[in-house]
């Protein structure tokens, strides 16, 4: 029970304390409106160039929208501890680090799901995409899996913040890489082999593929392998984040690498 409180209550309080975009203007502007304009940009560009149809861009950008709050949220979850000077007090906690930081992922993943669902809805309405009603539960599942995988990916980047002061650089580059390598806006077939390989290891790639299958009416059974692959990628990042947090915390005690207090 105490563990669930640490993950649930602790995670929500940490989210309010550390996430920079919680004010209504920031949340709506940066997280809800921004991705819709990005979706429209790529959809119209796609129409001009004849690369893919609207569904490709609407679904792809909706899944991509889940990543924004997760990648930056995960980074803020650690980097802002440095900013407020609270990192030392968090590290002095006798509780499990995995539980403390896992709790921080969940609100960001929830945010990601909300933003992705909103982007998909508004994008479909604006561009006239018809999604079969029976596909909606599956699409919601795909967006949820993508958001969670992105949350753990973001936490991995955040863990780097225990070791490297300028971790925002990594977040900015990661967002650009997600845009390029995950097949959400550039069809994977058009990418060089090594880029496709890197994309396979990133979150969103598999969820976007599964979500497109669902939006095309192929059914959950057809999309299940892609969603399972996305879940596996998310799990991989969860384990990597837990390992990095442990390693970098131990290193900070040995090398005084944290300006902890």
């Amino acid at each position: 029970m105490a563990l669930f409180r640490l993950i649930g209550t602790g995670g929500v309080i940490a989210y309010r304390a550390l996430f920079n975009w919680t004010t209504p203007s920031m949340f709506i502007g940066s997280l809800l409106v921004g991705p819709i304009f990005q979706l429209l940009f790529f959809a119209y560009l796609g129409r001009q160039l004849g690369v893919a149809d609207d569904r490709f861009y609407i679904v792809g950008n909706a899944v991509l929208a889940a990543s924004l709050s997760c990648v930056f949220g995960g980074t803020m979850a650690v980097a802002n501890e440095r900013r407020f000077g609270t990192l030392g007090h968090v590290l002095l906690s006798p509780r499990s680090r995995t539980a403390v930081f896992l709790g921080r992922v969940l609100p960001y993943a929830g945010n990601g799901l909300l933003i992705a669902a909103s982007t998909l809805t508004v994008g479909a309405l604006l561009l006239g995409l018809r999604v079969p009603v029976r596909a909606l539960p599956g699409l919601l599942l795909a967006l949820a899996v993508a958001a969670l995988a992105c949350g753990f990916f973001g936490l991995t980047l955040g863990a780097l913040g225990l070791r490297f002061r300028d971790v925002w650089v990594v977040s900015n580059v990661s967002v650009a890489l997600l845009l390029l390598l995950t097949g959400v806006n550039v069809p994977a077939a058009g990418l060089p082999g090594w880029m496709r390989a890197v994309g396979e290891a990133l979150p969103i790639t598999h969820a976007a593929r599964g979500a497109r299958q669902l939006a095309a009416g192929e059914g959950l059974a057809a999309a299940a392998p892609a969603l399972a692959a996305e879940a596996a990628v998310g799990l991989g990042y969860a384990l990597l984040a837990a390992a990095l947090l442990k390693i970098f915390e131990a290193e900070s005690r040995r090398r005084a690498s944290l300006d902890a207090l």
Partner: protein
Amino acid sequence: MSGYAIEAVGLRRTYRSRTGWLRPQRREVEAVRGVDLTVGNGELFGLLGPNGAGKTTTIKLLNTLLIPTAGTARVCGHDVVTQTREVRRRIGYVFGGDRGLYDRLSARDNLRYFAELYGVPAREQKRRIAELLDLVRLTGREQERVEGYSRGMRQRLHIARGLLHRPRVLFLDEPSIGVDPVAARELRRTVADLAATGTTVLLTTHYMAEADELCDRIAVIANGTIQALGTPAELRHHADGRQVLEVEAYGVADAQLAAIHALPGVREASVTVTGATQVLTVQSDAGVDVQAAVLRELDGVRLGRVTARQPTLEDAYVAIVNRINAPTRPLEAVGG
């Protein structure tokens, strides 16, 4: 179990840093160079020293944030390197300054979050937070965001956070730094109350009056080693056989200070600046009247009040710390 709340033996910590990429330069700084100390259960122990003396590093070694390069330390009988979780359950940590709190949250939410982190059982949290808000006199302001708090209020909230899980040992790292006199007095009262309830307190401070008023024993640390250790009364003996002359002045030059320092019978001479006024403090051998010679050296400087007085703990501290510039620097343990 050990009879001591804190034990440190031969504690050392070296910081290694590297700057530059093409031609990296490595640097080593020995912040702590063999600290031995014991603090009894329920004792209020002061660690005094100038900036960079090794106070904060010593505390970080004891509270598990750093691993010693050499030596060992135990808190409540648990090793600070290998039994971190056991140590962390038993300690609280408070440091001075504006940072260290979540500015966007209220005081109550700050305490709620750290109550989760420090393992305060859910059924106790509400009562414990209310108790602590009352203790640090923040009741009624607990719903306000911390970003609007004064430094004194932040300091009191730091203390409340440090006490959430009823630690047996509390580390207070310069808690009154930058706090106004009234708030500092309140802080001292809170710390004294804590010690009265049996909490072991290790306090670092720059303020001698604070240490004198609160501490059962004091260790003076400088250059990474303990230079003197004893009760405040015992430490004052380091200035035995001295007298102090204080001169208010406006415009004492470095050369004049050096000349005063070189006068026969003068043991220490320093200048502190308070607003536009300089206060020249000269410690001299008790049997030597240096007043006339000092005033002669200050010829041409506008002077204010001139006072002769007996040495205080602060004078003893200055005497101890300045001794480290001497060629040999034996450890002096005065009683205790």
